[in-house]
């Protein structure tokens, strides 16, 4: 591997480690106490009357709060686990519900390349869970 390749590998590994660390920290913080939230560009009554299955299916294991967002920005949907629902699953459900409510569908990712190589496979480990990670 040339110098540029090593540098890229180092950057990629460092980023993956940073993402994993943040994810661990976030998972710990999110286990039960904190509300996870998205803002949907729809009126509260529309959100209430057409809650997508992605969120509705958790109804007996989460607390769901719907309230108007400030500044005419739509509706805030907030969820908090009252059982054992992982934060990862809730983030994924919130994002999917938001997309369905706003755009009518959840955009599917393109198929992965056929020969990603070692670095690409490491990146796939990150992206496979990226839909439920991040900051909400």
């Amino acid at each position: 591997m040339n110098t540029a390749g090593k540098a890229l590998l180092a950057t990629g590994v460092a980023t993956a480690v940073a993402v994993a660390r943040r994810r661990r920290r976030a998972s710990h913080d999110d286990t039960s106490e904190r509300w996870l939230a998205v803002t949907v560009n729809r009126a509260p009554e529309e959100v209430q009357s057409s809650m997508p299955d992605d969120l509705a299916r958790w109804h007996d294991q989460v607390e769901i709060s719907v309230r108007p967002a400030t500044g005419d920005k739509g509706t805030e949907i907030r969820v908090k686990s009252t059982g054992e629902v992982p934060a990862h699953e809730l983030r994924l459900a919130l994002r999917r519900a938001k997309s369905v409510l706003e755009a009518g569908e959840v955009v599917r990712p393109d198929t992965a390349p056929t020969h990603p190589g070692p670095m690409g496979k490491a990146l796939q480990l990150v992206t496979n869970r990226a839909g439920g990670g991040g900051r909400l």
Partner: protein
Amino acid sequence: MKALCWEGINDVRVQDVPDPQLLNDQDMILKVRLSTVCGSDLHLLTGHIPFMQAGDVIGHEFMGEVVEVGSGVTKHRPGDRVVVCSFIVCGRCWYCRNELYSLCDNTNTNPAITQHLWGADPGGIFGYSHAMGGFRGSHAEYVRVPFADHTAIPIPEAVDDMSALFASDSAPTGWMGADLGGVKQGDVVAVWGSGAVGQMAARAAQLLGAERVLVIDRFDYRLRQAELAFGVETINYAETSVGDALLEATGGRGPDVCIEAVGCEAHSTGPQYVYDQVKSKLKLEMDRPIAVREAIYNCRKGGSVFVLGVFTGVVDKFPLGALMNKGLTVRGAQQHGQRYIPMLLDRIASGELTTSHLATHVMPLSEGARGYELFKKKEDDCLRSVFRL
């Protein structure tokens, strides 16, 4: 089908890849006619953006013909000629409704990466790494276009393919820099970078009423092209002090609006460039913000700086003191293309905006690797390589 794929650092090759499929109701499949390289692709090629997988199809500035539409597509039909914005947009989230299209909430399928890096995720982009959604790019015979009604725009009959191509990214990006940079009647505008985006920003500034527009670069052929196409004034920073030239051109005030169209791998002369290169090689600095520093330093008091060039992370020696004490407004964005593309196509049709001169090297996709080599090394006076499919 054939596609130009990223296979590793500075290694792109034409490969056989599976044809794209309709995956969502609002998708369409486009037969690509023209697809161009972009300066921001070089950050992928060099490994500066470390979120690529071998086999990823690159390319994000393109136009073509619709061949198949999903059941949820209402605005396009097979046979339509469209230009596709590099940003994929849902058209209905709060950001899209407020014409901040590149910030679309619903199109980045890997939001966690950029949320951790930047605090929030912008929209998805064609062929621009898995941090931006991992969508396949346009240097291919066919490409899937999600949310097609909002992502793609019909091309008026009076606009030829090559002119329309640059309405995909270069022209709207440049226009946005002048528009959101606040260019007004009588302004003096300085543009760093005489590539396609810089030239489009310069022309936009003229059309928005700027009295003088000065374009800065180190390649004479690029400056000459901008001068010939649009009659702008030019400064070659390898030969002339930019600060002195701008003071002289503005009666000692500095430009009212400064537009940076260079990005994170900027070149320069002198010790500052060596310093930034060393720091970036040691991974102590992610981006080289040389043109941004210069724009902030040279902007007039109370002026405006707009960052159009692509940046990825943190920078060093950011002139916060100049920004604060001179009362500057600094703003940046990826292109909100859908806000501008229909208007730009009309301006192209009327002859007010010319874009086809940007395509200095037109070639088949099979010569994709050569196209990037010419573009990267600025050989043969290459401004843009365009692949015809």
